[in-house]
């Protein structure tokens, strides 16, 4: 793979990665949100895959395949199964922040991500590091989704997006953390999503829905 193709595909993947986060902020249909998350996982997996092809190394390719299966396949399927079949449960409830304001906040967060990541780019100004602001933007957007959405599932999606953003950062700045950490972190995320999925089920049984506004028994 030539350098030009490599950077072209890299920029495309990072662009798709950020775009899927913005679209998740825009959409209200829970199943559409889960589909977008799967696309984001695929864009994330592209990063180690093209690096492996570019450097002719096997380990990044293996990591990329694992990521593709996990983040674009297994985790979204687990989440999609937690979306109820009832119509009222399929959509995000009236949001705390309306769509227009959400998109404006998202734009502000992207600008903030550029400001925060300046020291990282300054330390190692390469093609890949220059894409770090996009990964940081996804992290910030994920946190925003988690605090502004009212459905249990949306919070779980936000958590996965947060993790996608961190994994992308790891690939962009240092070609990924050591394999044992990468595998351990992926296992933890997988289990956390399984736990969240089971909890959504318990919640539906205990509360009759997954609106987080109902969680108000515990307070001081």
């Amino acid at each position, binding site marked *: 793979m030539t350098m030009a193709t490599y950077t072209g595909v890299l920029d495309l993947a990072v662009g798709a990665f950020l775009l899927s986060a913005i679209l998740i902020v825009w959409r209200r249909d829970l199943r559409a949100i889960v589909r977008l998350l799967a696309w984001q996982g695929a864009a994330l997996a592209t990063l180690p895959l093209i690096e492996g092809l570019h450097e002719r190394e096997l380990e990044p390719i293996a990591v990329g395949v694992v990521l593709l299966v996990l983040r674009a396949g297994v985790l979204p399927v687990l989440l999609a199964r937690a979306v109820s079949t009832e119509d009222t449960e399929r959509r995000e409830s009236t949001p705390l922040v309306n769509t227009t304001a959400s998109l404006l906040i998202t734009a502000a967060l992207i600008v903030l991500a550029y400001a925060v990541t300046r020291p990282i780019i300054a*330390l*190692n100004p390469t093609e890949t590091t220059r894409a770090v602001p996009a990964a940081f933007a996804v992290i910030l957007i994920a946190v925003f989704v988690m605090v502004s959405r009212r459905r249990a599932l949306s919070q779980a999606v936000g958590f996965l997006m947060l993790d996608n953003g961190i994994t992308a950062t790891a690939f962009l700045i*240092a070609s990924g*953390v050591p394999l044992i950490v990468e595998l351990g972190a992926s296992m933890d995320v997988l289990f956390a999503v399984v736990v969240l999925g089971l909890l959504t089920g*318990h*919640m539906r049984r205990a509360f009759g829905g997954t609106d987080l506004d109902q969680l108000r028994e515990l307070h001081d």
Partner: protein
Amino acid sequence: MGLALLVPILAPLAAAAFAAAVGWRRLSSYVTVLAAFAVLATGVVLAVGLAAGLDSGVVHGAGSLLRADALSVTMLLVIGTVGTLATWASVGYIDAELEHDHTDATGARLYGVLMPLFLAAMALAVLATSIGVMWVAIEATTVATAFLVGHRRTRAAVEATWKYVIICSVGIALALLGTVLLYFVSIHAGAVSGDALDIDVLLAHASELDPAVTRLAAGLLLLGYGTKAGLVPFHTWLADAHSQAPAPVSALMSGVLLSVAFSALLRVKSIIDLALGTGFLRAGLLVVGIATLLVAACLLFVQTDFKRMLAYSSMENMGIVAIAAAAGTELAIAALLLHVLAHGVAKALVFLAAGQLQAAHDSTAIRDVTGVLTRSPLIGTAFAVGLAVLIGLPPFAMFASELSISRALAQAGLGWVLGAMLLLIVVAFAALVRNGSRMLLGPPDPGSPAIAVPRSVAGALVAGVVLSLVLGVTAGPLTDLFRSAATLLGASS
């Protein structure tokens, strides 16, 4: 010695596998107690080894995946001690839950599997060589404890579990981002990618780490591990989770898990301080420490629920620990470690006693509980001793640790912090004494239910009271261990 490092991880894993195979039986529950005791025994063996000048203070095991030094050994002692008390009390606790139909065979089996897994994850967190693996282990504690917190599956328990998993996972994800950034600067400082996150490698390269990115990493790590340690601003999960979890689980989460998360912070602090100087994290720890203490003291004052009261007392103590870490002198760090150990044992006492009070009254409201000392001398005494430790009465160990922390703050020129800390401790003291005496003293209400004390809970409580006394009268044998941990963490004398 290297093989010994595997014991605290493999023994609980084996106990978990056994419980998964046979379910909740007398035998499997005692196998778990044995596994917890094995963690404690390993801690003692390693402590003796380190005192004898073993391997210049650091022991490696399992290739180079595991590593033990004075801090790891101290934390193993805390995990092992509280773990033994909590798993021992679990025997009677779960039997009673089964008897009253609060749980079923499946629930009991799940408890039997998750409890030792929780212990294994904490042991791995303090023994990992790589701070990346340490992160994995600490996140694993969230997964292992999720269904322990929600064991009763009531509405409140499900709500507490959801908040716990979401807030802690997000918080700890920030710590992962911080770890990734440390990896990046470590590689840049010339470390080899395979071991760039190893504690010793990071310490060796600390002075060459890029300050701007390291500062970003340090902030994220403080926020991330601070979440798990119950520090402001992401402390909101703590009271909910600790008040809903079964009593032995609360004892472990409050007495050990918070400290394990904080020890992770101490670990990275030793690296960050070398890279950035002590000022950066000191400022951060002081701000979150005092804020945590403030929130805890205020909420203790208005508390009407005794399990939440105990949870806020944990926050109060973590605030004190954070302030001690900020002071950072040898005296402060050694006192901090004594504080953590004493807190662990005391929290086991009060939570286990509170569990029996909750079971008897079917309520956790302070006003529903009266005259405990006359109704059940054992539960009353255990609760009273635990509270006495927590409010820092002599002869118990927290009196000594808080005194040392105060002295260290004065010596470090942090007089205003000392003043604020003492003021807030007095507020918390007053609240705990008022609520505690309302529950313990006085004549019982007519018609108060009998307080049952299963034999295993009684055993754990008696052991806890004895330990608290011993620790208070003589912490002598441990002083050297705490001192060397402090030196190792780069404390100034």
